[in-house]
């Protein structure tokens, strides 16, 4: 009964998994950066002085956060070919778009919370010194908000690593997809996916430790 656990041929089957892990990391980095940019824009928009801007940003962040990532990915997977019937491209691009939209909403919410967490006294001091809105945001609020945003940001990054596993469903060859491909060849799902899980753990656990270390530093 124990043999299925150890029936993994590392020499033959590990390289495809590692290649998949490479795409996973690439997706995390790509959509993480894109999501941060989107999140910065919409996050600051949530505290903008103009109400319509606030509402628009609010609709985006609240709606996307009420959806499973899989829905976003499936929608793009089916809809993009309908919109661009002559384009052929790897599903990795669809994956990045979907994950970026997803990340943007969550990161925007993190920024919104961090901006709010900056003590009011700071804003008032900025005003008393005669700074205008842009100057206040740039020199007083954002630097402090960014520091506050790091622990929840790292928390989201870990969630993002796990979310990338769903791109396997739209046939992008990430770590999970590689796992399925390997399994259909070696018929050892238990051993193979244990290795897959271990690889995800290796990517994600250091982030967990980093987040905890940073939180302790802030306290």
């Amino acid at each position: 009964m124990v043999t299925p656990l150890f029936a993994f041929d590392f020499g033959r089957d590990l390289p495809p998994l590692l290649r998949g892990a490479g795409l996973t990391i690439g997706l995390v980095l790509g959509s993480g950066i894109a999501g941060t940019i989107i999140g910065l824009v919409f996050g600051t928009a949530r505290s903008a002085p103009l109400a319509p801007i606030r509402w628009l940003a609010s609709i985006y962040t609240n709606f996307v956060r009420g959806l499973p990532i899989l829905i976003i990915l499936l929608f793009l997977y089916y809809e993009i070919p309908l919109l661009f019937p002559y384009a052929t491209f790897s599903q990795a691009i669809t994956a990045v778009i979907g994950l970026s939209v997803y990340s943007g909403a969550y990161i925007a919410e993190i920024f919104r919370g961090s901006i709010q967490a900056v003590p009011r006294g700071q804003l008032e001091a900025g005003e008393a010194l005669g700074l205008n809105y842009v100057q206040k945001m740039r020199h007083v609020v954002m630097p402090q908000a960014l520091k506050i945003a790091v622990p929840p940001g790292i928390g989201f990054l870990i969630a993002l690593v796990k979310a990338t596993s769903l791109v396997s469903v739209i046939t992008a060859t990430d770590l999970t997809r590689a796992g399925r491909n390997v399994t259909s060849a070696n018929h050892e799902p238990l051993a193979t996916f244990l290795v897959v899980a271990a690889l995800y753990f290796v990517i994600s656990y250091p982030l967990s430790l980093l987040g905890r270390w940073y939180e302790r530093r802030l306290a």
Partner: protein
Amino acid sequence: MTINFAAVLPYLPVMLRGLAISLEVTVLSFFIGSVLGIFVYLGRRSTFAPLRWLGYAFVEVFRNTPLLVQLYLIYFGLPQVGINLDPFWSTLAGMTLNNAAYTSEIFRAGIESVPNGLVEAAGALGMRYLQTFRFIVLKPAIRNVLPSLTNQFIVLFLFSSVGSVISLNELTSALADLNQRTLRTLEIFTIGGLLYFLASAVIAGSSRLAERFLFRW
């Protein structure tokens, strides 16, 4: 490409049936997982070191690996050692274990949020630890973590969509299926998305109402 929402409306009952399954697996895994989570929390606080380490390992493994991989292990891997679970039970098992890991952390935060002075005062009045826990610690602890618990419930609900990959007939698989049949991608996914979003919003709103009624101080 024409957009026609009316053509999709007859399929609403199919989607709602899928939504019901999503909610069913969410509710079950939330409550069973929370009870399990309490035990995991107690294990992490025990004086027996191997138990503490086991609890820590459990939480870290389930928080740092994707639910999809966990479901693949349960649905495809376990049959290799003789355990065969159907899509519903596989999804339920995976989500329950996942939830246990997260709620044990939430409970820890909640219990630690109760000021120590209150526990001392209860002790000074002669109350035993179990009494103190039941009357003094439990209610304030739950109230403090109600937002986190609600958030966890919604996260779990959104996670239920992963079950579609191992053929669970919940909402997402219903949407994918309808899309194949009608090819009205935009309409189907818009309505599906709205269903998920509205369900999440209702859950969040109910939690805020509950907070106001149950925890009136």
